[in-house]
């Protein structure tokens, strides 16, 4: 536990030791705002809620979250510090989890800084704050899902650009697996059960369910088990790739 905490603190501190954190947060907030107000036509919608705002989250995360996760392991492997980290008395799970949690908390910080949106809708109208809270929780879980995928894929390479591109691609598949772009590929020849299983992997399906204001246990379990599975995979990849 001590070791987990030490890794977590170092990683989180690492984001703020460089301009990365500030650049990321500024761009995150700026694009969130721009998308909501301009692309989303927030004012024209004439509704005092954050549905439009949350609708853009999966698509923004698709590019912004891999930017956080790409360095998690690729950087360690490039500089060789992975040898230092894993020869310290740190269990592998603590290293994997510590890094992931640091990235997750960092994305949580960025997400929580969108609070002016919440203030705005409360000033303009009388939104259902429970639904908004659910949206934030769903968004946070979804960020965790993207991060777990990204951290595993960051471990396969020492090149951050490769880690980024591969993460975006895989995250894209997980985002749209419920949409026709993926289901059409399987429809017609795969059994209906396979089809619905693939569709059930979609981030969008589960995220949209939560943002409607209902935190269903199944959606929570979906994200939790997705995160756990990718982190286990991450541990396996890190362990396998040590020699290379």
């Amino acid at each position, binding site marked *: 536990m001590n070791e987990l905490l030490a890794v977590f603190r170092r990683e989180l501190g690492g984001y703020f030791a460089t301009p990365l954190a500030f650049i990321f947060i500024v761009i995150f907030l700026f694009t969130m705002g721009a998308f909501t107000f301009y692309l989303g036509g927030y004012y024209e919608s004439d509704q005092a809620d954050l549905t439009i705002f949350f609708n853009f989250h999966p698509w923004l995360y698709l590019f912004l979250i891999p930017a956080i996760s790409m360095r998690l392991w690729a950087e360690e492997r490039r500089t060789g510090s992975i040898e*230092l980290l894993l*020869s310290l*008395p740190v269990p592998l799970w603590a290293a994997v989890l510590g890094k992931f949690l640091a990235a997750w908390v960092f994305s949580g910080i960025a997400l929580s800084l969108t609070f002016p949106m919440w203030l705005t809708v409360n000033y303009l109208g009388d939104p259902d704050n429970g639904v908004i809270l659910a949206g934030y929780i769903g968004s946070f879980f979804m960020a965790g899902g993207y991060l777990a995928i990204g951290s595993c894929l960051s471990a396969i390479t020492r090149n951050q650009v490769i880690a980024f591109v591969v993460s975006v691609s895989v995250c894209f598949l997980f985002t749209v697996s419920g949409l026709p772009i993926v289901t059409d590929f399987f429809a017609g020849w795969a059994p209906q059960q396979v089809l619905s299983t693939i569709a059930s992997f979609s981030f969008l399906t589960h995220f949209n369910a939560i943002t409607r204001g209902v935190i269903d246990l199944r959606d929570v379990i979906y994200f939790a088990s997705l995160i756990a599975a990718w982190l286990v995979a991450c541990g396996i990849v890190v362990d396998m790739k040590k020699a290379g």
Partner: protein
Amino acid sequence: MIVIEDLTKRFGPFTAVDRIGFSVSRGEVLGFLGPNGAGKSTTMKMITGFLAPSAGAARVCGHDIVTSTLAAQREIGYLPEGAPAYGDMTARGFLTFIARVRRLSGAEAGKAIDRAVEATELGGVLEQPIDTLSKGFRRRVGLAQAILHNPPVLIMDEPTDGLDPNQKFEVRKLIGRMAAEKAIVISTHILEEVDAICTRALIIDRGRVVADGTPGALMARSRYHNAVSLTLGGQTTVAVADRLRNIPGIASIEVTPRGEETTFTLFPEHARESDTLLVDAVARIAREENWPVRALYGEPGRLDEVFRNLTRSDTASSSGATGKDAA
């Protein structure tokens, strides 16, 4: 404190480390020698628990590195090759992180950091990001990290690589100071280093141990062991060489002209015997003949020559060099 038995590492069909075995006890400084790619770093990575061995065992202070990895790792201070660190952290931040991972509490950690910083003379750069430090300082940050928890076992992969002569001297002094109470393994391909700080040297080649002994014992394997070297000023004369060759007990002579000087190396018939008599004889003749002597000494042996003979794996067996050495 370190016991290695038949340690083996295979990467696919390639065997990087092949049944290496040795042990290091407290007070010993083991110099790990070998050409690049001989398996030095791989062996160290296995001892420190970074890589899992394909076969064999390594125990550190009684803890098996495979079955009780963390317990073994707590006893080890490790400086990996190139002294990797987290470059965006300051030296102090980095050492604080290491102290936390090593489970040192607040006051203890402070003391440990102060001690390590003092030993490695990092005081002036403590608040600078590690990325901005010079190579020498970065190496010292790595050293400070390795000795932070005052480990009984210290493993360092090329601790002086890339340092200037002054820094090398400092690092060696530091290792020397710690040697009495620790078991230390250093890898290097700087042979003078072995002579300077190691109590024992282990030469490995292609993953196998090819020599294990004190630096003195290794040097005794040299062709030059107990040879006498005489350097004269002025031009080489055939007469001088002939005169030297006629000394009783001389097997052969090598003549190496270098600028205004000439060095004669005299190989005795019985290389294992002490060279003092031979040195005396040469000195007497030099006085009698009134030669302009610049230097005269008995050679302890040349480690680099022993190293080359033992590790020229592709050519050694065919060239006959090792055969002659053994005879």
